[in-house]
């Protein structure tokens, strides 16, 4: 028994099956995490090796190079890049997307084991560091403080960080820029010398004095007493009165030789929120946790915690990625609801019956819900890719149900009972319904096979559309006939139609459209050459226009965030950096009223740890983060503001380099990198600087950067070993003494309210701020004599060589540029031209890469996808029609869908991104589907004995409604997506635009050109089937005795 017959005969079973599916789907929907993109593990692993005391080129030769060679044979490795700097080698390994990183890190470990013995002695064990998206903060908060600024570290630790860490799904919470309390004992070297004291002595005395010690028990009478010596200072100022020595009979107190300062740690980093002092807190989630849920809880928790904070501490939300995500998801959900509404309107318009419309539209929720089950089962999430996929599928899932329902209605109108009509009508069409679905699946399924980053993104799209469309077909041949048999009745037509009923208004209009179309078609069939020439002209013309469409990787979205990294003159001290930061802050306050919150950090925190891994940091760096008002509340886009900021930064002379980036979650990156491979530093650096100047001159190129940094100034103490030996000193002793005097000696710990703070003894800053100060440092030799540093060596100014970067096991310098106001593809073209003109010395290879390279890779992938889709679609069609010619006839409409895409992109001034390109590929399936419906019917009519032109014209007329209906449902379902201007819409609206453009154009072409081409191809042989048959069966003409 066939599936549709069972469905009609057992309506309750059918209903129960679908209700079961819906229940499962709703259950899945409730538990689906919400995220911006499908989960993907970035395939990067870095290996960090330290070799203390070696300079950059030693590191390169002895560590980086042999390790790179060892790693080169690891499976799935895509590219090796490395940086060798003083003391440190960082090798960055990029693997193919979706390769098993655990296996990869095992491979790395094996390679290290093999070659570790060959590394020089003293090299630390290499550390393998896996990059994880969960290390990116999901939310950043800022705490502004007044009086309690000094104690902020403690307050935050207890009142905020600990409660936050208890939230389920939180990976880690990191506070940056908190002031750390520290007690400095700053000595005056002249006085020390005068009292014959040293820093070390003072340090030891503080250590010896600041002490609590239990000393046993004393039994007295009936009691047992504990004996304790309490020497710990209770107040930091007590330190001043410590006796540090004696001189000429009197005691020397600490305050005689030094100043005790109970203060914050030396300024290395200034963190400001809205212009006043404050700190930033980054919240990271665990891998796989639901960003929106976690961020929501963080927000709620912080709201609750506010009352525990001192009144002068203000909490600001700098970044919350969940907000953008939930806004995008809400936006897409709205888009889908609009699409649903449009589909309902179209179906109602064409069918004119509420019950029929209900039956057809019911397939939408059922098909979509099945994809939730798929997402839940595979551990996916609701994200913009999956929701956009649902949006695309929405217009297509009704098609099958429409075809089935239409046939059932036809039977019922002939007077068949609904139950029988449902069975027999479904029997007539179920095969062709399945074939058209196969065509769609043939286009979407290959998406699941694409590799690379595009593949990770579009895998969900492929699966979701394939699954929903398949489900819709299943529903169309089971649920639709079942419901039709129950809901559609044998109604006698109303004698007199109401004045504004469907029959009075829409029917005449549709008939008029049909008449018009039939006339056009008949005209076209008589003027085949004219139609062909016209089509050719349009197609060639559009190819010509294609040159004006610019290309980019993945469209950027306005996430209302601007983050800026600024680098000032190398070696600039942090106080100077802060002055520049003040000026930048002034600019922000004055020029960007859109900035709701701005946070700034100047200098670097040496304990920042993680942050240092991702960007360069130093006393000369400033980072700014601005959160703008929501998109619809401001006039300037985030890019206009970024451009203006760049202009402003150009006017500050101290600024050497800067990167202005918009949005926190940008996937692909947008830079064009010119990689210069070559061994000689001098030659490559010169070439890099030359190119960077030329690239800067290109309009639209911004943030031009050379990756190799300028040499950094350093003071080096060059010791004379002979002179040292005379005083009994060695390098270790001298360097330890210098460290104690400059960086300071941590003598002891000061305890207050259960917290511990370091007591650091060192020279006062005014005594260590010039080369002559340094040379006059006195160091006590083991013989007890005092030696000035100047006597045993000299202090020299020295330029530290740059870091050595390598890629593909060769030295490389990268000049990178970010497009602003122009498309990535255009900028890359200009840069390519510059590179081509450049005078490249021998032995140097230049390669243009970066996001541009990724974009080209992705376009290649898309091209391949297009080819596979075409082949699969051809296979399906050729087997359906049992003909090699018919698929070609139908495929004639495909090039014109691209014409439509090009026109739509040009008219709306949209760039061709990977997303828009994907839209073009997907068109194949949808476009061909219309062609199949038409050609199939023409074949049918000809088999029924109509003459060629008559068959074409009649079937054109009869099939116009279904074709228009499926085309309109798909197009209108896409309109909300294309028009959407909300958060995150930049990413998916190009796909909507290209799909609509392609569909509108190709529908028109399908309806006119395909019949004409059919006419042309059918001239020979196909034309008169009757004669062919007669030629085959000749037995009647033979044996005529």
């Amino acid at each position, binding site marked *: 028994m066939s599936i549709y017959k069972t469905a009609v005969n057992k309506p309750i079973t059918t209903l129960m099956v679908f209700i079961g599916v819906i229940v499962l789907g709703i259950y899945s929907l409730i538990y689906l995490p919400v995220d911006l993109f499908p989960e993907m593990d970035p395939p990067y692993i870095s290996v960090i090796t330290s070799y203390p005391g070696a300079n950059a080129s030693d590191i390169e030769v002895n560590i980086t190079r042999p390790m790179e060679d060892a790693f080169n044979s690891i499976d799935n490795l895509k590219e090796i890049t490395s940086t060798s700097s003083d003391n440190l080698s960082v090798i960055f390994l990029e693997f193919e997307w979706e390769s098993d990183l655990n296996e990869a890190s095992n491979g790395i470990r094996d390679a290290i084991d093999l070659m570790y013995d060959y590394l020089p002695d003293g090299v630390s064990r290499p550390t393998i560091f896996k990059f994880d998206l969960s290390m990116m903060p999901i939310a950043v908060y800022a705490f502004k403080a007044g009086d309690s600024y000094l104690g902020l570290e403690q307050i935050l630790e207890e009142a905020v960080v600990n409660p936050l860490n208890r939230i389920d799904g939180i990976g880690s919470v990191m506070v940056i820029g908190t002031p750390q309390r520290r007690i400095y004992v700053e000595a005056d070297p002249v006085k020390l010398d005068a009292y014959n004291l040293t820093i070390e002595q003072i340090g030891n005395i503080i250590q010896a004095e600041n002490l609590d010690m239990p000393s046993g028990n004393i039994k007295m009478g009936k009691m047992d007493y504990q004996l304790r010596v309490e020497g710990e200072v209770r107040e930091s100022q007590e330190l001043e009165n410590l006796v540090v020595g004696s001189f000429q009979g009197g005691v020397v107190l600490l305050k005689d030789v030094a100043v005790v300062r109970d203060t914050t740690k030396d300024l290395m980093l200034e963190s400001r929120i809205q212009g006043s002092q404050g700190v930033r807190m980054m919240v990271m989630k665990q891998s796989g946790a639901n960003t929106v849920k976690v961020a929501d809880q963080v927000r709620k928790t912080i709201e609750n915690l506010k009352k525990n904070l001192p009144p002068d501490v203000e909490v600001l939300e700098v970044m919350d990625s969940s907000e953008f995500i939930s806004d995008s998801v809400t936006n897409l959900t709205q888009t889908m609801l609009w699409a649903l509404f449009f589909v309902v309107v179209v179906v109602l318009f064409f069918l004119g019956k509420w019950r029929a419309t209900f039956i057809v539209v019911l397939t939408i929720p059922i098909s979509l819900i099945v994809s939730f089950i798929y997402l839940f089962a595979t551990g996916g999430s609701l994200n913009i890719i999956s929701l956009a996929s649902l949006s695309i599928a929405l217009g297509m899932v009704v098609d099958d149900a429409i075809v089935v329902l239409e046939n059932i209605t036809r039977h019922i109108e*002939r*007077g068949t*009972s609904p139950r*029988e009509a449902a069975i*027999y009508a479904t029997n007539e069409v179920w*095969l062709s319904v399945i074939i058209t679905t196969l065509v769609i699946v043939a286009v979407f399924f290959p998406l699941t096979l694409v590799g690379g980053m595009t593949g990770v993104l579009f895998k969900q799209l492929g699966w979701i559309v394939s699954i929903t469309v398949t489900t819709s077909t299943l529903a169309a041949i089971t649920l639709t006939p079942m419901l039709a048999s129950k809901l559609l009745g044998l109604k006698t037509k109303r004698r007199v139609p109401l004045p504004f009923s469907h029959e009075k208004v829409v029917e005449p209009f549709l008939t008029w459209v049909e008449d018009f179309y039939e006339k056009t078609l008949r005209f076209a069939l008589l003027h085949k050459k004219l139609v062909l020439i016209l089509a050719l002209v349009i197609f060639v013309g559009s190819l010509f226009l294609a040159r004006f469409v610019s290309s980019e990787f993945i469209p950027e979205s306005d996430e209302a965030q601007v983050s800026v990294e600024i680098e000032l003159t190398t070696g600039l001290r942090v106080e100077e950096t802060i002055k520049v930061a003040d000026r930048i802050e002034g600019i922000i306050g004055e020029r960007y009223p859109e900035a709701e919150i701005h946070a700034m950090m100047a200098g670097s925190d040496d304990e920042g740890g993680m942050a240092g891994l991702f960007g360069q940091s130093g006393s000369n760096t400033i980072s700014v983060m601005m959160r703008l008002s929501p998109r619809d509340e401001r006039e300037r886009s985030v890019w206009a503001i970024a451009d203006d900021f760049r202009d402003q930064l150009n006017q500050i002379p101290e600024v050497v380099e800067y990167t202005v980036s918009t949005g926190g979650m940008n996937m692909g990156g947008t830079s064009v990198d010119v990689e210069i491979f070559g061994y000689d530093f001098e030659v490559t650096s010169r070439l890099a600087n030359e190119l960077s100047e030329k690239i800067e001159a290109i309009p639209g190129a911004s943030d031009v950067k050379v990756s190799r940094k300028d040499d950094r100034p350093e003071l080096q103490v060059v010791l004379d070993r002979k002179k040292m030996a005379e005083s009994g000193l060695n390098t270790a002793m001298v360097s330890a003494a210098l460290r104690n005097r400059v960086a300071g000696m941590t003598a002891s710990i000061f305890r207050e309210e259960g917290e511990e703070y370091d007591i650091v003894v060192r020279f006062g800053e005014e005594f260590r701020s010039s080369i002559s100060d340094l040379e006059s440092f006195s160091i006590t030799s083991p013989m007890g004599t005092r030696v000035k540093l100047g006597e045993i060596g000299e202090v020299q100014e020295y330029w530290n060589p740059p870091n050595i970067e390598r890629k593909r096991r060769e030295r490389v310098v990268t000049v990178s540029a970010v497009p602003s106001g122009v498309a990535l593809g255009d900028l890359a073209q200009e840069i390519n031209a510059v590179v081509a003109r450049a005078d490249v010395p021998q032995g140097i290879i230049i390669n243009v890469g970066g996001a541009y390279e990724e974009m080209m890779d992705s376009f290649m992938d898309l091209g391949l996808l297009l080819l596979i889709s075409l082949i699969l679609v051809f296979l399906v069609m050729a087997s359906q029609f049992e003909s090699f010619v018919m698929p070609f006839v139908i495929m004639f409409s495909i090039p014109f869908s691209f014409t439509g895409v090009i026109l739509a992109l040009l008219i709306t001034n949209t760039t061709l991104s990977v997303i828009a390109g994907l839209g073009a590929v997907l068109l194949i399936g949808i476009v061909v589907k219309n062609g199949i419906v038409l050609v199939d019917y023409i074949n049918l009519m000809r*088999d*029924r004995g109509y003459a060629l032109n008559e068959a074409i014209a009649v079937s054109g007329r009869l099939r116009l409604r279904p074709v228009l209906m499926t085309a309109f449902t798909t197009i209108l379902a896409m309109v909300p997506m294309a028009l959407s201007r909300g958060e995150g819409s930049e990413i998916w609206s190009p796909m909507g635009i290209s799909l609509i453009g392609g569909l509108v154009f190709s529908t028109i072409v399908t309806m006119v050109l395909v019949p004409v081409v059919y006419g042309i191809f059918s001239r020979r042989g196909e034309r008169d089937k009757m004669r062919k048959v007669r030629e085959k069966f000749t037995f009647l003409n033979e044996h005529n005795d």
Partner: protein
Amino acid sequence: MFNQAHSERVAFIFDRLEIRGFSWWNEVSGRGSESGEPRMGTHTWPELNSSALTIIPDEKVDPLLEAIRKLDEVNKEVGIRAFVMNVEKQY
């Protein structure tokens, strides 16, 4: 001979006229001599017929033909035909 869409109604007619015995063939293909769509069950002509053979006394023949005519009047497109033949001998 009738369109399979008429199956239930034909069975109903047999019941109403108290015709107990009949033979029934499902999915019969064929085409009419003068008018009517061919019923081939192919892609071109997707519909199919069924046919029933019943041996009845002479007095039931006319009511049956009348019922069949009424059924055909509902919609000519669907189609039903009945042919009467004599039964010469019987086992």
